[in-house]
């Protein structure tokens, strides 16, 4: 997570894991969000709570350039404004009926969500190619200990497993839960990618074990 006094950027998902026309839940320091990509490929992030009756919008569906709530079908544009209330089709919803949205930046195959007013742009992560993401029931400190390396200001940590250099982009979800995005220094062969994926799963097990010891009385 990249943060400065006025705001922060959180890497919430890899671009490849959010195809057009889909919505997924994600977590940021400002709370849960519904992260979606319109049919034309534009990503948006809104609060994960429909203003009508509180249903999670991350359970909704994307149609064209709008996100709809699964409960009563209320539809929202990318700016968060309500466009349609199916039970009252004759009404053009006013601008004021809206869901809060967050800025989204898509850089180098990683999707970042802004919270507050971040002063800088998210890092380019030039030369790094995203592989996959995984959740770890372990805090950042335990992951750093397991990797034998420290994460930098962007939340990026470099570790070598066998002959491979693997980069982990960490996003703290809870005190003892971290979202890990795995990036490699180039495409790499299938075998290299599988090896890297397995290496990070092994590292996760180690970090989770360390976290358990830390919590044990």
């Amino acid at each position: 997570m990249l943060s400065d006094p006025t705001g922060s950027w959180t890497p919430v998902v890899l671009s490849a894991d959010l195809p057009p026309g889909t919505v997924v839940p994600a977590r940021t320091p400002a709370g849960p969000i519904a992260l979606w990509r319109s049919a034309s490929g534009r990503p948006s992030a809104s609060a994960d709570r429909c203003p009508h009756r509180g249903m999670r919008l991350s359970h909704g569906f994307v149609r064209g350039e709008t996100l709809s709530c699964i409960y009563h079908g209320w539809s929202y544009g990318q700016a968060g404004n309500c466009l349609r209330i199916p039970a009252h089709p004759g009404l053009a919803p006013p601008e004021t009926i809206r869901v809060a949205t967050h800025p989204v930046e898509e850089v180098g195959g990683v999707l970042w969500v802004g919270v507050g007013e971040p002063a800088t742009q998210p890092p380019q992560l030039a030369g790094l190619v995203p592989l996959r993401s995984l959740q770890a029931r372990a805090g950042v400190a335990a992951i750093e200990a397991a990797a034998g390396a420290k994460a930098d200001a962007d939340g990026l940590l470099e570790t070598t497993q066998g002959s491979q250099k693997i980069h982990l982009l960490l996003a703290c979800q809870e005190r003892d839960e971290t979202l890990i995005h795995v990036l490699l220094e180039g495409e790499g062969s299938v075998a290299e990618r599988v090896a890297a994926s397995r290496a990070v799963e092994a590292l996760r097990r180690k970090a989770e074990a360390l976290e358990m010891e830390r919590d044990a009385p």
Partner: protein
Amino acid sequence: MTQDAMIDEWYPVGLVSRLDGNGRKTALMGEPIEVASDTDGSARVTSKGRVLPVRVRYGHVWASLGQPQKELFAIPEADQPGRRFVDVGVVRVRCSPLRAVENFLDIAHFPFVHTDILGSEPHTEVQNYKVEIREDADEVWATQVKFYQPQAARSASGGITTEYMYRVPAPTCSVLYKTCPPRPGEWDVITLFVQPLAEDLCDVWPWMALFDDESSMTDLIHFQQTIFLQDRSILENQIPRLLPLDPGMEIPTRADLTSVAYRRWLKRRGYTYGAQLVAQ
């Protein structure tokens, strides 16, 4: 939240058909209870050794932690010959028992949650309907509710415009009367009996009294279970989990009239177990 006025009400705690000697452990408003059949086969419900008031009605065992001031609400259709009485079983839902009832009273979600069964696009408009609180019976009633339904019931063949009446005779129970495809002059009866386990956890016991001589019991049960499992995925992902009595963080519309009347009824009677008092 204290159990308050809701303690002196009847609540479903199990199926009569599943009563057995060694008893089943469950809960009622946060208190552990045990439901068993007595030596003479009658139902017996105890909580920490105390024998609770008990009734057997509509295929279910009912009990109360307090002293109910009146008998269990009547459903005359339950004694009408020719009806099929269907015990659907139980669905455990991680939400307030009051949220489960509010969802049952709502029709605007049919095209989106029960797609191609109880509703479908583009038939999403909710026509105005009538809602009243019948003071004499102390019940909430919604009438003249109409909605187009592709498969209104197991017995329906083809889409029809269904008419509904909703009734709330107790804080966590609702009775739905809907057009009966095989017998236009009659109403099919579908009920929602909700057992409050905790303020944010409940067991939903649907029960039905239908006219349908074709469908098997299994098909009737599957039809209703499908619908309730679709509702569960909504109920377990709504914020907040309790039922707000102050809609400051919501936008109720005219289509939500029955929900608003139900919340007013709860507010007026102090039925706040499972309710959120301050919007957040």
